[in-house]
């Protein structure tokens, strides 16, 4: 029983990190029809810049804020200068975002060196609670809480604000949105910025969770995020959170019981979904 709970919490925490990465991917895809293969790079950049700020200021919170800001700035730059010039051409987009991924990862090594960097948990989030026989690691609970908060915030943004309404409308019909006098380019930029910020936050949170950060973490998590985006349904925000939890949990349980097959199982799931149910397991867009 304790093992089950512990594994579930573990899976949930990982799921939330994947969600932070996947949510942006799916929103960007839904609205702009762009699959950003560089999204993992934003994740890794969030981790490096956040941890760097955290270690130099000593404040974890400032580190988080710094990571988000760094991610957003990179997101805007990416959207403006890399993706915008090739809007509407899928082949070019795919090629260019993959190239950007390569450059972003290498840039990390240029700025912070090629070796992995250790990341510690701040004191107030270290240790664990004991509830009955179950040990709950504080930092994991923290990740889960942050993940859910972000989910609720974005949900609120999408459902209750004008810009959210515009985003949802844009997912369905971009031309009509523009015909109603809305500058869709600005909306693209906004969504890209939000997505990049979430990815960067995810990367930053991963640091203390895994203890180290390294340049290739972006690619590793990006693959999981792609799986989530496909399973959740490309463009579906609420689908992405469910799929992320599913992938996180399955990863955690598989790693415990059949470690050899953990990643393979998720990839197989994605392949099966893509082939037989390309709209994803969790239905409609939105």
């Amino acid at each position, binding site marked *: 029983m304790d093992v089950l709970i512990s594994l579930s919490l573990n899976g949930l925490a990982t799921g939330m990190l994947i969600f932070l990465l996947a949510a942006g991917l799916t929103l960007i895809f839904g609205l702009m029809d762009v699959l950003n293969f560089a999204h993992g790079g934003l994740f890794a950049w969030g981790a490096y810049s956040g941890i760097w700020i955290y270690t130099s200021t000593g404040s974890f919170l400032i580190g988080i804020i710094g990571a988000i800001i760094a991610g957003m700035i990179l997101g805007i730059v990416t959207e403006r200068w890399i993706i915008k010039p090739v809007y*509407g051409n899928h082949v070019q987009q795919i090629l260019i975002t993959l*190239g950007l991924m390569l450059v972003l990862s290498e840039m990390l090594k240029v700025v912070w060196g090629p070796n992995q960097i250790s990341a510690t948990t701040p004191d107030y989030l270290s240790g664990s609670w004991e509830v009955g026989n179950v040990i709950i690691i504080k930092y994991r609970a923290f990740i889960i809480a942050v993940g859910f908060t972000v989910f609720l915030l974005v949900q609120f943004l999408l459902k209750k604000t004008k810009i959210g309404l515009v985003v949802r409308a844009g997912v369905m019909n971009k031309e009509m949105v523009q015909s109603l006098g809305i500058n869709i380019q600005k909306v693209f930029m906004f969504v890209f910025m939000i997505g990049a910020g979430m990815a960067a936050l995810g990367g930053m949170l991963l640091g203390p969770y895994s203890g180290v950060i390294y340049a290739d973490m972006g690619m590793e998590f990006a693959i999981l995020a792609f799986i989530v985006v496909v399973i959740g349904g490309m463009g579906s925000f609420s689908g992405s959170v469910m799929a992320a939890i599913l992938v996180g949990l399955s990863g955690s349980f598989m790693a415990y019981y059949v470690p050899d097959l953990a990643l393979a199982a998720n990839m197989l799931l994605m392949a099966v979904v893509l082939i037989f149910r390309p709209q994803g397991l969790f239905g409609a867009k939105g």
Partner: protein
Amino acid sequence: MTKVFSNNRMNIFYMIVALFLAVLPFVYDSRSTLILLSQVFIFAVLAMSYDILLGYTGIVSFGHAMFFGIGAYTVGVFMKRFEPETSYFLLAVLVTILLTAVVSYIVGLLTLRLKSHFYAMLTMAFAGLFLVLAEKWRTVTYGNDGFTFRVPEFLRDRTDFYLICLASMVIVFILLKRFTNSPLGKVLQAIRENEQRTESLGYSVLQYKVIASVVSGVLAGIAGILYAVSLRFVNTSVFTMDITLDALLMTIIGGVGTLVGAIIGAGIIEFSHHWLTELAKVHWIFERWIIFFGIIYILAVMFFPMGIVGSLQKLKFGRKKKTSAPVKSEAVSQGDS
């Protein structure tokens, strides 16, 4: 574009270059140069196989390493498990061709119906599966660390091997030239230019794409065999994204849809890799040489989607003939202003 190649002057030029490369080891006996050039030839085969997909059919695969790795592991396992003899080597080549053909056929059939980004993602996932397989199936693959093996007699001499690689490259180049100029190749290019139109002309686009995928997969497998033999060692790195990225960089920088661009790209990347890694002793920034190519690659996709060769051709023939950029092929679906 093809005019340039059926052009006799060009063919003579290619023949001179090939001849020069063939006599090189007998006049200039530098072991390291031979090894480096062998690598160039091997990767040129890989890049040309990628060009068939990207440049000639307009398909973006992020899982090309899968076929390269299958070739590398097949030959490695055969040499290790059985005897390093010619017969087993030939058997390994046969098995590679079979395996890569079957895998590329199945993957292609399942996925080429999908939109381009789905295909890119799915190939990435399939390659990931093979990577996991190579890591976990330790009894055969020895896990992450891989294994060394011995090679048949006829592949042992560096000069002989160099000539074999050169010959492979030349043969693949000639075969692919024929292939792309054949009616079938023309259909592929029509798909690249406008998939819907080709479909409406009555061609089964999926079928043609699968053919391209199989041709490309098998050749990548051959490149993998040569690669493993050149190192006499194989590990999981042959299945990684890096291999696919190499193929992509070479094709894009050299010039998509030209074949010879893939060869030039392979030369540029391999030589730069070699020299810039040397330079890393002078300054560490050269250790990160790949970043330069990443940036060049991005700029190339943005501004010179035809790469070096394509751009040169355009300069020369631009006035006479309207050339179109292969990477720019997909119809503009988003009328944003």
